[in-house]
């Protein structure tokens, strides 16, 4: 028989354990594809659970850290973001401003309000009064200027259209409200506050829209408008107690925020003063623990499913090839090499599935995030699923562990296979 040209002209190739695993996966293609798809689906869920476990915390941290302030001062009880007034806020503001540990300070008040436009129904919103005319951490300007762009009005509430234009307080309105009412910079907007728990007959007041902005803390179904403290007082009929819902401060560089927190706390021991890190840590301990626990349970469950899927498929595969395995052992092929082939096979199935799980998981996370963010009163800038490199590392580690554990039983089967008995059974069968 004449020898046909062979591709084995160079040095002989070694069939490695990885090579054998790859060939096996290709040989039993349907089984491999099923396993990869299964791992990809389960891995996507697992990846999402990892994104969820710290997503809200990371997103929250991003939100409050994006502000120009790293210290928050609230009333004497409750959570740092709850609306608990700080008494003698004006005096406190000056005291804090005088501290060498503090670089800047601003006061915030908010009140539910409604629009009172000549046309159209009233629209509920949250009106914020602030001493920070640039709105650091409260809004991100899209159009127009900050509150400093117009001289602050100090007049009382206007009656009808008789309010003097030059006396109109400035307002920065949210993009969503601007879109809803068809407003832009230099428009006017009429607002009326709704005093909580009180009957109110305060008249509406016209504000000059000086800017349109994104308000990261605005809920998707709510609107925000910011004005100066003078404007805020004016819309309250010129009568407003010396209170603040929150005071924001930033530590002077390079002083750590904790030192500034201590200095402010010393001024007013009755208040709660937190650095951003402390706020985040408190939320991590109290409010986001549910997500973390849920995520751990679901991650573990999906990892178990991955393990079961791959372990079952590998076990079935080994059982189908017992004769081959016994023959290889009879030929002197070491257990270690056959076991390595199985481990590589598990790694290939789980690895390919795990890689596919990443885009699938990201896509699923975006869909789920959109659904969850429809919850009422949730700040627009808050996300449930947030990517961080740590999630990727954990995802990879879980997959490696899954592949290793899934290969354990098949490897044990191969390692303890009685060669002679298996060969006999294969012939009999």
């Amino acid at each position, binding site marked *: *028989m*004449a*020898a*046909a040209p*062979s*591709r*084995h002209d160079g*040095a*002989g*190739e*070694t*069939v490695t354990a990885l090579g*054998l695993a790859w*060939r*096996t996966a*290709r*040989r039993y293609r349907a089984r491999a594809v099923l396993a990869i798809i299964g791992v990809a689906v389960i891995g996507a869920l697992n990846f999402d659970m990892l994104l969820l476990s710290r997503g809200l915390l990371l997103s929250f941290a991003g939100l409050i850290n994006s502000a120009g302030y790293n210290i928050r001062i609230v009333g004497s009880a409750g959570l740092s973001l709850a609306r608990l007034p700080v008494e003698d806020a004006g005096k406190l503001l000056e005291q804090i401003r005088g501290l060498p540990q503090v670089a800047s300070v601003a006061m915030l008040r908010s009140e539910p309000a409604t629009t009172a436009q000549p046309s159209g129904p009233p629209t509920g919103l949250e009106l914020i009064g602030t001493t920070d005319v640039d709105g650091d951490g409260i809004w991100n300007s899209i159009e127009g200027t900050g509150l400093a762009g117009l001289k602050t009005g100090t007049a009382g509430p206007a009656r009808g259209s008789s309010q003097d234009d030059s006396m109109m307080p400035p307002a920065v309105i949210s993009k969503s409200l601007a879109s809803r009412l068809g407003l832009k910079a230099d428009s006017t907007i009429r607002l009326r506050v709704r005093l909580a728990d009180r009957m109110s007959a305060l008249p509406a007041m016209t504000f000059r829209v000086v800017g349109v902005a994104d308000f990261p803390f605005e809920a998707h179904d709510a609107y925000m408008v910011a004005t100066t403290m003078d404007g805020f007082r004016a819309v309250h009929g010129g009568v407003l107690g010396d209170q603040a819902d929150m005071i924001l401060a930033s530590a002077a560089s390079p002083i750590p925020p904790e030192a500034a927190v201590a200095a402010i706390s010393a001024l007013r021991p009755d208040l709660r003063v937190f650095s951003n890190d402390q706020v985040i840590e408190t939320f991590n301990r109290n409010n986001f623990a549910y997500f973390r626990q849920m995520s751990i349970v679901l991650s573990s469950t999906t990892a178990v499913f991955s393990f079961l899927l791959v372990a079952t498929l590998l076990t079935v595969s080994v059982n189908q090839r017992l*004769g*081959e395995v*016994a*023959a*290889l*052992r*009879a*030929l*002197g*092929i*070491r*257990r270690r*090499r056959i076991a390595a082939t199985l481990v590589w096979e598990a790694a290939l199935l789980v690895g390919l599935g795990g890689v596919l799980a990443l885009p699938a998981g990201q896509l699923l996370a975006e869909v789920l995030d959109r659904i969850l963010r429809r919850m009422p009163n949730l700040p627009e800038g808050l996300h449930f699923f947030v990517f961080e490199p740590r999630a990727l590392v954990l995802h990879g580690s879980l997959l490696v562990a899954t592949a290793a554990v899934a290969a354990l039983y098949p490897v044990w089967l191969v390692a303890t296979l009685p*060669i*002679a008995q298996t*060969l*006999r059974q*294969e*012939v009999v069968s």
Partner: protein
Amino acid sequence: MTIVEARRLTRVFPMQAGPVTAVREASLRIEPGDYVAIGGPSGCGKSTLLHLLGCVDTPTMGSVWFEGRDVSALGDTERARIRLRRIGFVFQRFFLLPMLTAWENIELPQSEAGVPAAERKARTKSLLEFVELSARADHLPSQLSGGEMQRVAVARALANRPALLLADEPTGELDEDTGEHIAALFDRVHAEGTAIVLVTHNAALAARARTRLAMRSGTLST
């Protein structure tokens, strides 16, 4: 040096219905250049004896000495090393790896034994020529006929130049003509200096061996 010597081998399989003695006090010595055929009815213990000689099973009583060493005193790794380097196995059902080509199946035991690539290549090429399958080097087992698969299996068994070739019903899955080709191949293997022990029902194949033994109910006789 004697390749393998079986001394009063007994192999008992514990079964639920009671122990079954597959091999009963069998003694046998295989010297270099021997060509032994063991015949006998199904279930008489031929394959079990072959497995004992091939270091894949251990006797319940008696001992196997391979090239002067008591196999029962060797660990699993050492026995695997003997099987890899000194013994070649040919199975009734070929047991080629279906995902590897003929070339790769023959190369596998060599790469396991650490044979350098160039030497491996030359050996594989020469073995494929020896079994007259050079043209099918890159074919998968599924692309080969039964006879071709068994020829590849013989080449694989010879890959590491074993002192002893053990064949368990090597023509059991083949038709008469193909079986005849395989028998002729064994003659050539023997002529090249490899000792052969085969168990078979095939009288024509057994007739080609220098020594013919019979087994009945686990007992070996001449």
